[in-house]
């Protein structure tokens, strides 16, 4: 309970400060006194996660480590992202020299100097820098205000990001557990997996979802979000996420003739010239609209609610899957639309001959992704042979995703060819986008006292503040942000407590200093790059004074700099252990460890639930049960360390 309290109080404090300081400014108070403001504790708006999964305990120890690393990386990534944005505003700032105080954790968030050593992990916070340019007081205030608002918004946005812990089964039978946040595409997740598994990064690798109830399998497309589909799994789902090579994922781009000239003799197709293949791709994927393979032929359709399969002559069109009714011609106007692809996905099926008495085992179904069980809303189709099934499924994917599929393929090829250098490249790209931060010396000279570390403050807060659930109401919902559509709200039902997917709240944010810097190599570029690009420009360069107001704690760790201080380590566990285990700061102890479920595992998981949240008028906010998870995690980790 205490940690929740702490969290609440932190949050309350934060909000108080925010409003308070703004109020002050409005009343034309002189400069706000940033140094006097207790460092805004990193808030945990555990928004969007109504639930936390008990299954943490099921995770193996090394999973936990990896997970922890992920979490930390996540926290710092956000920080960093924000700081980077902030820094970009300082156009006028001179190029920063290397940090002079080694104890400063302050890192130059986004300097282009990649060889700069990462700053040490155990100390906190250099004082904030002064604004690089002299602005009038009003301007400063303005900017300060604006900056705070932006920070608040950013945090709100970040806090709402839904995260899942996903156990990914790998073909060799092992599995990896990783945290996926809802902004990550399957591509990002795969990059992450490539790092973790050290497999060759060829384009055939694919993250698939299997559903044992329906005996289906579907490879996620690289541009899809992973969190969305996984969120729709049922509570007791046996579904799995599998990481495997799938030949047919991009076969259409390697051998387009198989799909686009399927009527021709198969033998002659195999030895097609590369030049002709390229031309086929260009014709079909590079025009104003993507041309869907002109598939047609007899397929078996399982009749609604019946056991029988009926032959029909099907035709694939960009607008949907059609069949020609008995006694009619194949003319377009006579076709009957079986399904359009906007709301359905296509799934391969296994052993439908047994399950549904299908004529062959080469079946595929079309269904809404949320449907998890047998239903009349599923369209069951059966092909004569495997090739024809591949043709149809691929054809439907082309019709559904269009050019995106080709883009995915091109990205995959690019990454596969440069997989080794990729991680460095993107990170550099993002950091080089921003201008250097001001000199640390100047920051120190500004005279802001370093903020007290949170290690001491956390527990203190937790006693002095009552558990204030209503304080949540103070939080304004995030304003509409047309560029980045708000993430989906939490599903109404408490999500699954299944073993494979755990809903995760955002970690309560700990003072930066107490954490070892995240293992950078594990760090998935947290917000997908395109999103970055879409940020309105005025969001990127928040004005300088922010540093003053938001003290050191808020400052991010150094820019991800894989080459510098972290020798490309074995990812995950070991790295974490070496970096974080030895030096003082373990994560802030989940204060009174006594009644934690971990201590009493046999009794089953006792859920720590926050007081039932009051009816909220703000839509996005849900019960802050998130602190729970973190403490859970901590306990587990501690337990493990103790052993």
């Amino acid at each position, binding site marked *: 309970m205490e940690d929740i309290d702490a969290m609440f109080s932190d949050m309350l404090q934060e909000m108080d400060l925010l409003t308070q300081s703004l109020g002050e400014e409005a009343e034309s108070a002189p400069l706000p006194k940033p140094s006097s403001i207790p460092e805004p504790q990193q808030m945990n708006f555990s928004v969007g996660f109504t639930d936390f999964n008990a299954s943490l305990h099921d995770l193996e120890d090394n999973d936990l480590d990896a997970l922890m690393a992920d979490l930390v990386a996540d926290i710092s990534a956000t920080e960093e992202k924000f700081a980077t944005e902030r820094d970009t505003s300082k156009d006028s700032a001179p190029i920063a020299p290397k940090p002079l105080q080694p104890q400063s954790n302050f890192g130059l968030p986004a300097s282009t100097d990649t060889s700069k050593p990462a700053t040490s992990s155990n100390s906190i916070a250099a004082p904030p820098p002064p604004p690089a340019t002299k602005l009038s007081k009003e301007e400063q205030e303005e900017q300060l205000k604006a900056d705070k608002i932006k920070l608040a918004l950013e945090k709100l946005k970040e806090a709402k990001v839904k995260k899942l812990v996903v156990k990914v089964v790998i073909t060799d039978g092992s599995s990896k557990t990783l945290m996926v946040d809802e902004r990550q595409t399957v591509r990002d997740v795969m990059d992450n997996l490539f790092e973790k598994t050290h497999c060759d990064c060829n384009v055939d690798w694919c993250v698939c979802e299997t559903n044992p109830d329906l005996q289906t399998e579907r490879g996620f497309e690289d541009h899809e979000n992973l969190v969305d589909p996984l969120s729709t799994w049922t509570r007791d789902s046996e579904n799995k996420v599998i990481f495997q090579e799938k030949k047919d994922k991009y076969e259409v781009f390697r051998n387009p003739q198989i799909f686009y000239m399927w009527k021709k003799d198969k033998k002659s197709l195999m030895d097609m010239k590369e030049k002709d293949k390229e031309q086929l791709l260009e014709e079909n994927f590079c025009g104003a609209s993507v041309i869907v393979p002109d598939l047609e032929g007899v397929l078996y359709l399982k009749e609604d609610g019946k056991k029988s399969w009926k032959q029909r002559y099907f035709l694939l069109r960009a607008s949907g899957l059609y069949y020609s009714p008995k006694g009619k011609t194949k003319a377009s106007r006579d076709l009957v639309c079986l399904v359009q692809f906007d709301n359905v996905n296509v799934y391969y099926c296994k052993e439908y001959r047994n399950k549904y008495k299908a004529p062959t085992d080469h079946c595929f179904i079309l269904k809404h992704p949320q449907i998890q069980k047998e*239903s009349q809303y599923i369209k069951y189709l059966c092909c004569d042979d495997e090739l024809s099934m591949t043709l149809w499924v691929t054809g439907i994917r082309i019709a559904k995703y269009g050019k995106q599929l080709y883009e995915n393929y091109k990205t995959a090829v690019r990454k596969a060819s440069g997989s080794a250098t990729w991680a460095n490249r993107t990170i550099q790209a993002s950091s080089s986008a921003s201008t250097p931060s001001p000199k640390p010396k100047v920051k120190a000279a500004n005279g802001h006292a370093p903020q007290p570390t949170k290690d001491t403050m956390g527990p203190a807060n937790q006693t002095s503040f009552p558990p204030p659930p209503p304080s949540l109401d103070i939080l*304004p919902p995030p304003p509409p942000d047309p560029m980045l559509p708000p993430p989906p709200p939490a599903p109404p039902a408490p999500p699954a407590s299944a073993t494979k997917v755990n809903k995760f709240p955002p970690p309560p944010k700990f003072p930066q200093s107490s954490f070892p810097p995240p293992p950078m190599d594990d760090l998935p570029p947290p917000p997908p790059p395109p999103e970055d690009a879409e940020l309105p420009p005025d969001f990127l360069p928040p004005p300088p004074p922010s540093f003053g107001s938001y003290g050191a704690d808020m400052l991010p760790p150094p820019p991800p700099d894989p080459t510098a201080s972290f020798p490309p380590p074995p990812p995950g566990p070991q790295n974490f252990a070496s970096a974080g285990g030895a030096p003082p700061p373990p994560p802030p102890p989940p204060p009174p460890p006594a009644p934690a479920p971990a201590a009493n595992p046999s009794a089953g998981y006792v859920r720590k639930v926050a007081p039932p949240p009051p009816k909220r008028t703000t839509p996005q906010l849900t019960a802050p049960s998130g602190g729970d998870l973190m403490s859970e995690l901590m306990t587990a980790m501690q337990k493990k360390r103790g052993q």
Partner: protein
Amino acid sequence: MAAWDLTVTVEDLGPDAPPLQISVTSDLHIGGVILKLVEQTKLKKDWSDHALWWEQKQQWLLRTGWTLDKCGVHADARLIFTPQHKPLRLCLPNGATLKMRACFSSSVFRTVMGICRVLNIRHPEELSLLRPVEEKKKKKDKDSSEELYDLTDVPLTAGSVQALYNGMPAHFADSPKTEAVYKMLSVSLPSPAPEAIAKLYRPASVVDKTHIHTRWLDSSRSLMQQGIQENDRIWLRFKYYTFHDMDPKYDAVRLTQLYEQARWAILLEDIDCTEEEMMLFGALQYHIGKLSLSQDVVSTCQGMDDLESALKSLEVKMVGDGNSTDILDNMTAPVLNDYLKIFRPKRLTLKGYKQYWCNFQDTSISYYKSSEDRFGEPIQQLNLKGCEVAPDVNVAGQKFCIKLLIPAPEGMNEIYLRCENEKQYSQWMAACKLASKGLTLLDSSYQSEVKNIQTFLSMQRSNSAAPTAQTDDSINTHSLVSPRYHKKYKPKQLTPRILEAFQNVAQLSLTSAILKFLQIWQALPDFGISYFMVRFKGSRKDEVLGIANNRLIRIDLGVGDVVKTWRYNNMRQWNVNWDIKQVAIEFDGNINIAFGCVNADCKVVHEYIGGYIFLSTRSRQQSDTLNEELFHKLTGGHEAL
């Protein structure tokens, strides 16, 4: 050298004036003839555009340096002295007729370039001229009433770069009249009346479709040579279905006319599509029509402003006063609260609609027994994210239902919401629609979505109203679909179907809607195929040859199905035997085909194939200048080479 008399008719002297006789010698060059002629007319005017047309030989004498002897002109020649540029009644892809001057003496390819320069259409090589379908006699008198746009006063500029003035090429900005012409060219026209569509010729079969292609003019000869007279009607159409470098910024006219051509192709069943596709085309036409009527240039960078204003408002609120509830009130997303009737169809139930207090918040609907219960637990909460939303509306019957298919692990939950009136319906419908996409009421598109639904509903309402000119509100849905569906559905049956498709496109801007229309059109299986009736060598029956931008298709008329496809990139060479009018093509792997054309000139077929090959070279050479020589090389007949 002996002098002889040359007879020349000078058109400018009037139709009844006798031909002039001028005394010439055979070594007099054409320029000299013209000089003598002009002196003799005693007319003072600008003769610079005039040239000699040799009627018997059907050719122009354009080389002023050539002597009469070299041209082969003798005393028996009847020459006509006439302007090279004459007015033409150009029937545009959008169906409007535009009177403008075109060059009658240069090759049609050049003439089209000139026309397109005036009309501000880039890439004129994609267009060409064709003879119109013969009109029935009785329609002749209607011609006078036909609205005619006139551009004959606009001088033909030689420069290729057009200065823009008031957002249109400078030569359109001269007068209100020409401005109106530009508007006609660049803004799509209102939907035609259903009767007008029904009256027009529609090809009923693939054989019918071959007829239209027999009408293309020869690109390498002049209009005059092909018997086109001053003031004749002629169609301007996109001939080759590869649209290079389409850029809405520069291609206002081109895009609009292409859209119009596509629209008419759909309406007249020139290209076949399914019912679902037709409904989507209908919805897009409605949307485009509506936006075109109220065309004010709306900038699309709204997103930025929204964020900015959101920040501002947040700022104001936080600065304003610290009263937390106040902040909350202001910052809370708008909600919809109302009594609605809900119906959940289940097997073996006869229960009908039941009234509940419904609360729409975020992307969910919660419903309660009554408004008093709204603080308690809802009877049910429906999260609409990812659901299917379909309208079930009958304005006349005052039925405003929203059909929701909400996905659940077990399948889809079917739920009907019944609203009292249009206003309520449009609000809830818009909210459902946004929620299905994961957007909330807070989204900036909500208000426009509501408005869209309202205007669409009013279509139904005003059907019975007086048949005024098509305004924003009244439109007959029959004018959005091909006549086949006029028979199949009544307008009020059609409206909900189009409305359903409309939901998915209502948010598009004018340009994106047009692009979307073109995209779907281009994705149709039969898109871009031009049909010709041919007879293959060694075959005894007529077959149809389809020419597309990348392949030739052989279609068996008996089966009506594609028999064989040959791709251009396997093509080694093609020849035309002009004597027996046979096209012979050789493909990789020693495949040889030869065919003669049944109803078209084989020059047309030859030009079509050559034209596509010419167009495919464009992407490689990025220069703006058109390689006219290459075009003629690829498409010209024996006389051109």
